[in-house]
């Protein structure tokens, strides 16, 4: 059946290019509108600079994001529905799903969750690389105790850019690639509940990252990733990039959370009760609730700051009746659950992989799931520990100290589950397993240092020091990024049919593990010695430790680049073919063919057992007869 493609389809083929054109047109239109027509409405405008005014930049960014999405074709369906257009046919849906295959579907809007997972992986790695370059600049500057290659202003902007970009990407580093790719397969669904919404959550990510990076053309921002007021009100136009970037990321997190919850709870195969759901899916479910419920607080805070910068509202300025604590409260009500948005899916991912290497079922599976749920619930009750030093009412400190320390209980349970799984196991030390071990080692140090920050007296001396910075990097980089690397090595054969050089990766693992710990143990030490973070200058006696951190960090950067290099060389250039199930996993995702069929299953799973029956060798699912293909196939 060869019919001439419709105009919508032909435009969709050029989605990315049209999106970029739409972004440029949108920015120009928004900038002109914001700088002109609405600048007197409600007293908007502020003080224009040679680069423009806040309303112009904000509206320019907003309309460029909208123009990008319009060019990609995201508004075709809702606008068509507004005029009563027919629902898409099965053939239309199959086309949008990327059934025709080909590389082009990775550069346009598609509703195939597997393609979206790959899109996430590539974009996240690219932005992490850029953020990593920022870290290299920071550590190079800190080789000397006085400014050498940057001034204080540009250094602060660089710190803010590095940290915010990393936070953006870390928000979705596990769920983006692996959650989108594998959750529908793991629950026996053929697609997400809202496939277009899933595509939207991904395509909000590149504009958010690029808008944030564009801050370098607008003078940067000096608030760091936390964007504290009233400094945020006083910042130059570069602050607008931070706000619009965070608004888009907040929206993406919330929408992704809603879609994942709906998919897991309503699109699951009916034969699969919650009790048999893979532990990774559980972690995605918990994280999705965190995102859907916490991100709106961030959106509210960002809206207030945008109002402040465009309409001179005074939400956060005491002289105008506002308070910086309002920002701190709203930001951290989102910000602390955000930490678990990073970490809980990492826990889920390593607990999913662990039994395949231990060749044993996950020990205390339900308890481990309970641990993740416990971490998720408690994460909403701890945000004020970030305000211990900045002015929380003293009577509130004990509660938040206690609630924060309570989080170590469910986290400890997750550790016990991992240890119990490894107990008397015939563990296979495959390369992903090395990263899994490193995950638990690093996160242990991250958690241990966190106890000192949750404790009011010690927090008073450690707050805003390099100790905090090292703690955070131990949890997020040592935890989430190591889990990400484990996940890439483990799941790459399924996602691409290709594999990496496992022997070379072992060398890379030891390089990244040792340099990571060398870097951040040095920074724990300088933090204890009182060096404040975000300062370009430091006392001369701290130079040896700083130099140690910088040299290790530069080596860490090289070893992380080696990972990317191996990935690109082996998968893209050399195309090393992977075995069908190299880890001999029993998970359902390994029982479907590679490449995974367009709608996931040629034969539907009809009965499900636990996905980690390594003691009996029973696979996670039994499959029924072949299912009919789409009519458009």
């Amino acid at each position, binding site marked *: 059946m060869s019919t001439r493609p419709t105009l919508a389809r032909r435009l969709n083929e050029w989605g990315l290019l049209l999106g970029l054109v739409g972004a440029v047109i949108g920015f120009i239109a928004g900038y002109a509108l914001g700088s002109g027509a609405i600048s007197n409405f*409600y*007293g908007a405008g502020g003080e224009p600079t040679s680069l423009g005014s806040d309303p112009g930049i904000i509206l320019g960014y907003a309309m460029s994001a909208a123009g990008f999405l319009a060019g990609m074709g995201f508004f075709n369906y*809702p606008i068509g*529905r*507004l005029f*009563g*257009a*027919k*629902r*898409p046919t*099965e053939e239309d*849906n199959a086309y949008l*799903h990327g059934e025709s295959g080909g590389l082009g579907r990775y550069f346009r809007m598609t*509703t195939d969750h597997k393609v979206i997972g790959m899109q996430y992986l590539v974009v996240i790695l690219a932005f992490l690389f850029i953020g990593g370059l920022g870290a290299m600049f920071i550590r190079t500057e800190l080789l000397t105790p006085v400014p050498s290659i940057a001034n204080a202003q540009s250094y602060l902007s660089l710190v803010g850019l590095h940290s915010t970009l990393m936070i953006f990407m870390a928000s979705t580093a596990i769920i983006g690639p692996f959650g989108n790719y594998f959750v529908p397969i793991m629950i026996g*669904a*053929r*697609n997400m*509940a*809202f*496939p277009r919404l899933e595509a939207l959550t991904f395509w909000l990510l590149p504009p958010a990252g690029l808008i944030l990076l564009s801050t370098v053309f607008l003078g940067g921002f000096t608030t760091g990733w936390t964007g504290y007021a009233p400094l945020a009100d006083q910042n130059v136009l570069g602050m607008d990039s931070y706000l619009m970037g965070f608004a888009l990321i907040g929206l993406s997190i*919330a929408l992704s959370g*809603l879609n994942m*919850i*709906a998919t897991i*709870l*309503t*699109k*699951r*195969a*009916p034969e699969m009760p919650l009790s048999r759901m893979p532990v990774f899916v559980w972690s995605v479910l918990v994280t999705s609730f965190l995102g*859907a*419920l916490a991100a*709106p*607080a961030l*959106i*509210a*805070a960002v809206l*207030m700051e945008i*109002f402040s910068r465009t*309409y*001179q*509202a*005074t*939400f956060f300025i005491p*002289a*105008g*009746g*506002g*308070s910086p*604590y*309002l920002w701190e*409260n*709203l930001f951290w009500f989102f910000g602390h659950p955000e930490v678990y948005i990073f970490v809980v899916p990492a826990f889920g991912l390593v607990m999913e992989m662990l039994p395949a290497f231990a060749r044993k079922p996950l020990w205390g599976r339900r308890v481990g799931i309970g641990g993740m749920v416990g971490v998720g619930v408690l994460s909403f009750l701890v945000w004020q520990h970030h305000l211990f030093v900045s002015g929380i009412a003293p009577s509130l400190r004990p509660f938040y100290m206690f609630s924060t320390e309570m989080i170590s209980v469910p986290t400890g349970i997750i550790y016990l589950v991992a240890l119990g799984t490894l107990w008397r196991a015939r563990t296979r030390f495959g390369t992903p397993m090395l990263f899994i071990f490193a995950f638990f080692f690093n996160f242990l140090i991250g958690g241990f240092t966190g106890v000192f920050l949750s404790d009011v007296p010690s927090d008073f001396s450690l707050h805003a020091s390099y100790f905090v910075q090292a703690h955070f990097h131990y949890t997020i980089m040592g935890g989430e990024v190591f889990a990400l690397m484990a996940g890439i090595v483990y799941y790459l054969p399924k996602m691409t049919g290709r594999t990496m050089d496992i022997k070379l990766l072992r060398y890379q693992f030891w390089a990244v593990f040792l340099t990571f710990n060398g870097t951040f143990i040095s920074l724990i030490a300088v933090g204890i010695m009182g060096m404040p973070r975000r300062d370009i200058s430091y006392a001369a006696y701290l130079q040896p430790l700083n130099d140690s951190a910088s040299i290790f960090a530069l080596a860490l950067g090289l070893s992380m680049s080696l990972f990317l290099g191996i990935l690109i060389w082996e998968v893209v250039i050399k195309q090393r073919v992977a075995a069908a199930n190299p880890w001999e996993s029993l998970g359902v995702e390994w029982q479907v063919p590679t490449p995974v069929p367009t*709608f996931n299953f040629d034969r*539907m799973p009809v009965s499900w057992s636990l996905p980690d029956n390594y003691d009996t060798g029973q696979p996670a699912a039994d499959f029924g007869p072949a*299912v*009919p*293909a*789409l*009519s458009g196939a």
Partner: protein
Amino acid sequence: MSEVSPTGLTVIDDVKGGGHTLIFTSRLVIASNTTLQLSLLFAFLYLRANNFGSMWHPSGVGTPPQVLALIALALPIVGVVALLAVSNAVSSARESSAVTGLLWLAFLATVLTGAVRILLMYQFNWTLNSAGTYADVATLWYAVLLAEFIGVAAWLLSLVMGHVRGTDRLGSAHARAILEQWTYITGVSIAVYLLIQYAS
């Protein structure tokens, strides 16, 4: 809403008679929206309670015009009644023309709601840089609610047009979901009105 259901897949939604995903997700959206509304409520109460620099509600800064604010409340309530009638008509499988009439009525109420609320915001007699944080919170909150009313109105228009043009039959799940969304936003707008007018 299941775009791949014709492939032969059986999912929980199908087992529960369809529409389950839509209703469930719509309620999730309400839960998520509640966090947004509670964040604004927190800002209102926090700034009001502390009255930093006596700049919560400085003298000379009024409240939104009462009559217009009441009209802006009455219209969404009419919308709730109309959508309730739509939902009942759809679930009792009443004839299509009756449903169409009710849908248009509901849509008219939503359009008027949006128009009156824009007019109301235009009548706020303050500039934000000097009116204190009461005006800031009131303006932002009304703007957020306006955006939400417009969003639900757009959804309703898509249902109306699909029904009128015969391209899509209005299902009971859709009717119920949009009724719940509109009722929720109307309820929040009543609470916001009471706060802004009487707890200033």
